[in-house]
């Protein structure tokens, strides 16, 4: 009897040790992802809580971004392609940090170039600032000319699991395979 208990403990320990880990940076304990209720770029009412059951990746960015945002969106597009028949496991939500220039129409057209399933959120500067505050994100306008500017902001991807918990952050530039890896791991959790 004792031997059986020891053996099962050893087996459990080895299984626990072999459990694959997320490639992203991980919170422990995870907290509930701050709620987001906002008009989406397509005119529908968006509620983050309605996406429970999917793995949600939030990206903060803006449509005039020339390097970081399009690169991240391309990686997320690739990730959905790699997921193939399981692409619906991943829902990408792109949150504008430049609501003055990112009108709903512009945001919708911009995201459709990458993947039509991507949800875009924009609103008044106050509404968008409130979302950023909840996630601890800063966005700073950097003038690039008399009438132009870029916006400095977080380039991390925020992973929310199927239960709505903010679980992980992935730094910019990680390959699509790592996004797929983390989406599948979070999806497989009960």
């Amino acid at each position, binding site marked *: 009897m004792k031997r059986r208990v020891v053996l099962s403990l050893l087996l459990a320990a080895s299984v626990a*040790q072999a459990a694959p*880990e997320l*490639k992203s*940076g*991980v*919170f*422990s*304990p995870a*907290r509930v992802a701050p709620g987001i209720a906002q008009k989406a770029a397509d005119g529908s009412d968006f509620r983050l809580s309605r996406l429970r059951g999917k793995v949600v990746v939030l990206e903060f960015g803006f449509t005039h971004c020339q390097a970081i945002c399009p690169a991240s969106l391309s990686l997320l597009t690739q990730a959905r392609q790699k997921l193939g028949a399981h692409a619906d496991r991943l829902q990408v939500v792109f949150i504008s940090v430049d609501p003055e220039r990112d009108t709903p129409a512009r945001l919708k057209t911009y995201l459709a170039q990458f993947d039509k399933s991507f949800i875009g959120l924009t609103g008044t500067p106050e509404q968008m600032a409130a979302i950023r505050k909840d*996630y*601890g*994100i800063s966005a700073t306008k950097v003038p690039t000319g008399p009438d132009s500017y870029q916006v400095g902001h*977080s*380039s*991390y991807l925020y992973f929310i699991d199927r239960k709505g918990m903010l679980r992980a*952050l992935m*730094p910019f530039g*990680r390959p699509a395979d790592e996004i797929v890896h983390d989406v599948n791991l979070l999806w497989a959790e009960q």
Partner: protein
Amino acid sequence: MRVKKRIGIALAVAAIMAPLAWAALAPLHARSAHAREHLFEIPQGTWERRMKGDKTSILPERVVLTLGVRDVLLLRNRDTVPQIFGPVLIMPAQDFRLPFAQAGEHPFDCTAHASGTMTVVVEEAPTAGLARLRWRLHHLFKT
């Protein structure tokens, strides 16, 4: 007699050289996933001290990690208020475990620092030979 002396010297040299050769050539690897973590704890009262004007640094401003050996930054917030590390909002009593996969310098804004920034330097694992020997000796005397 002379032969015995030579054997003695040879053995002494071997006793010194063998561990050095091992240190220079044996591959580096972390003993466990836990061993790859470099823990930094933000103690309780950090925010309060900052608000009172205390400029003493609690955390180092520069952290050096080595890929494949010690390449995970573990931040533990023991303060009573949330702390911001780069884009990460770490709540009280929460840990954030950030693995690094690329060598380079990674600067982060950090509210727990007097200077407001922390730089994580991620180095490639040292190659076999003098670089690995130097790395091992450095970490042997550091710990």
